[in-house]
């Protein structure tokens, strides 16, 4: 059994209450940090831990924290990004719903490290009921003196608020999130300046994912070096993986970043294999934005090595033969799934969620969706496949924020690895009339074999 640092006590009855959470060692990181450590020392531990942003980009958290500008007399903010909206990802919801105090404890310790006296948790509007759970937990924390004025008699003050969104994937992008938090449309800002210099209300701001902030708790408790001992290379610690799609046991799993993809899918400790007694066809290992991989490349890298659940191994081979850890939204597809339909589905998502600010994303996402819809419904032409390739190439890298890239990558990867399936849709429109066209007979590619 792998170590669990974040959700070890998830099944303890009453863990959502402060009393039970505290009895399991909760809030010791706040005590340790505030009573025995300087803010800089906390940042140092986070640096040592090698913790990387769990929202998707995987940027080293300690480094991000060290970029925070500290002009005298100017407020600094810590904002938690709980706008979890990446298709395939539901780990933050799980964590906040089950153990809300884990996030609140992390927010207090992290705010102390950054010198923030007001912090916000920006949560997506659809998670209204989770927001209520968090607010109840915050009320408890205030009542017990973990929040408010003069925490633990240290002179350190902190106010923590939950801020609710209203349905917009783009608000997961940190500058769009800040705009939204300021009561505006969720349009990403043009960078630079980065939030570390000018973020919320123009003040220096750090925006971190829920899981990242929760991970600060064990890092402070056990020390950054201890944390860094878990995992392989630059993938330190544990990671929450949201497993969904065609799996026997979908759900949220905390893994040590040292297990193989194969173990994650097939072992009974984790997903327990592919559902319906079918074979694995493909997988999106890190949320809808990351490249889809066919089964063989998912389990083994192009070099023939076992693919591991780490940042490095999942991206081994670059986009040609690899993918990304992303947000850890692990979506498995069995042989009944149609990759063209999946790509259309994702494309529709990005089209729906584009903020419309910059032209390549605003116009390109809709165009891709229309072409994919046409292909999936048997009205496509062979040239459409090359056209799609060209459109995604012209969106990628040319937009204000990464949503353009996120919309382009799944299309690119689907064509790269499953081109034959696209061609099949053009060649045999009558065979794909039924929306569940591969349910009875799966598509057999001449290139890659479906494994195990």
């Amino acid at each position: 059994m792998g170590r669990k640092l974040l959700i070890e006590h998830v099944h303890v009855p009453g863990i959502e209450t402060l009393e039970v959470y505290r009895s399991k060692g909760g809030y010791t990181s706040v005590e340790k940090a505030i009573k025995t450590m300087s803010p800089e020392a906390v940042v140092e531990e986070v640096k040592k831990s090698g913790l990387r942003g769990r929202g998707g980009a995987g940027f080293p958290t300690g480094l991000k924290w060290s970029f925070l500008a500290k002009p005298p007399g100017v407020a600094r903010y810590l904002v938690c990004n709980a706008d979890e909206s990446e298709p395939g990802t539901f780990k933050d919801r799980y964590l906040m719903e089950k153990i809300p105090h884990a996030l609140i404890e992390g927010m207090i310790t992290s705010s102390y490290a950054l010198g923030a006296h007001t912090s916000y948790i920006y949560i997506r509007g659809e998670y209204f009921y989770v927001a209520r759970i968090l607010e109840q937990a915050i009320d408890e924390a205030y009542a017990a003196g973990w929040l408010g004025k003069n925490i633990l008699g240290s002179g350190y003050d902190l106010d923590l608020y939950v801020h609710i969104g209203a349905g917009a994937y783009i608000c997961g992008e940190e500058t769009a999130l800040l705009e939204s938090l300021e009561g505006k449309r969720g349009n990403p800002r043009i960078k630079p300046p980065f939030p570390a210099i000018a973020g919320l209300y123009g003040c220096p701001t750090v925006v971190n994912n829920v899981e990242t902030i929760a991970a600060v708790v064990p890092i402070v408790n056990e020390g950054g070096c201890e944390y860094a001992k878990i995992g392989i290379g630059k993938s330190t610690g544990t990671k929450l993986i949201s497993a969904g799609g065609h799996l026997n046991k979908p759900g949220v799993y905390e893994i040590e970043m040292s297990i193989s993809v194969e173990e994650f899918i097939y072992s009974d400790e984790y997903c327990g294999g592919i559902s319906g007694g079918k074979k694995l066809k493909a997988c999106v290992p890190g949320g809808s934005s990351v490249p889809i991989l066919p089964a063989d490349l998912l389990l083994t890298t192009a070099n023939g090595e076992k693919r591991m659940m780490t940042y490095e191994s999942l991206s081994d081979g670059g986009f040609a033969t690899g993918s990304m850890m992303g947000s850890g939204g692990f979506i498995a597809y069995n042989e009944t799934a149609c990759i063209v339909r999946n790509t259309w589905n994702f494309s529709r998502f990005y089209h729906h969620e584009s903020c419309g600010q910059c032209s390549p994303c605003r116009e390109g996402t809709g165009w891709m969706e229309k072409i994919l819809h046409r292909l999936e419904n048997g009205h496509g032409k062979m040239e459409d496949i090359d056209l799609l390739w060209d459109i995604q190439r012209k969106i990628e890298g040319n937009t204000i924020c990464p949503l353009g890239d996120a919309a382009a990558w799944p299309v690119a990867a689907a064509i790269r690895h499953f081109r034959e399936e696209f061609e099949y849709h053009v060649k045999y429109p009558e065979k794909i009339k039924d929306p569940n066209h591969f349910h009875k007979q799966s598509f057999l590619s001449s290139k890659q074999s479906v494994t195990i």
Partner: protein
Amino acid sequence: MPKVTIDNIEIEVPEGTTILQAARMIGGDVVPPAMCYYSNLKTSGGYCRTCIVKVSQASAKDPRPMPKPVASCRTFVQDGMVVQNTTSPELLEARKGVVEFLLINHPLDCPICDQAGECDLQNLAYEHGAAKTRYDFERRTFEKIDIGNKIKLHMTRCILCYRCVKVADQLTDGRVHGVMNRGDVSEISTYIQNAVENDFSGNMIDVCPVGALTDNTFRFKSRVWFTNPLDAHRACTKCTGKVVLWTKGNEVLRVSARKDKYAEVEEWICNDCRFEHKNMEDWNVEGARKTAHDSVISQNHYENIDLQKLKLEINRQIKHQGGKKIKEVYTQAQIENKK
């Protein structure tokens, strides 16, 4: 002062200069096109992505290239920065993509659009676009609406540059129009048809790079190239009163602000000058408005044509547009050779 190199041309510029401004200081071909940036409007730019450039060296201190093309209008020059615009084929290809995106949902109704002949999007498409469209779906349309009684909003033509919103924000008090919805159904709209009633609201027409906001008092009166533009001024208490009169004979068809060579308004004018003074007697005429020789507005005034330059331009267009027929017509010699 930082030094920047754009397309192999080095220039020293003041601190806080953007790449686009630096390129404009150099002038000529190195200047990237800009559809949403506007020097006189704060926080404008960054949206249309036509001004993207490649930064092959970020600065002397950090010589790494920037990973993606950047919007030159919103990126500040660093000392030792090396920028590629026309010298980077992949950048030009990316820009061509941006132009295509801007055009896929544009109605291409130039024959009935009042902006034709002075439209930034037409110029952009001509300079940087492809000859053919690859978009074969239905284009998005919106109902036309009136913003007040003087301004017509034809949202179908809009490229969402946000300039008009910034004019309303920065020049007028109490903005009543803005951007609604999101994604590709975003639209400029007034709040429940509230009229824009403000002394400077007419400037929205001048900043609009396309025919989305046009002057209702000029609607369908004339193609711009059949008018005679004159520089004129009058004593005005609200603005400088310096305008361009678009005339036919003795008739003033339209009054607009004066624009520089980047099609940006030099000085904002008030609605009084723009809409309420359509008599020649109201104005002190300074003389003919100078128009760039390659502008369609200057047709029938060909005295300043540089034949050598014209030839180069034709060749460039032939190459760029890949138009076979034009090639056959213009290069008989090549046909002879083929035989």
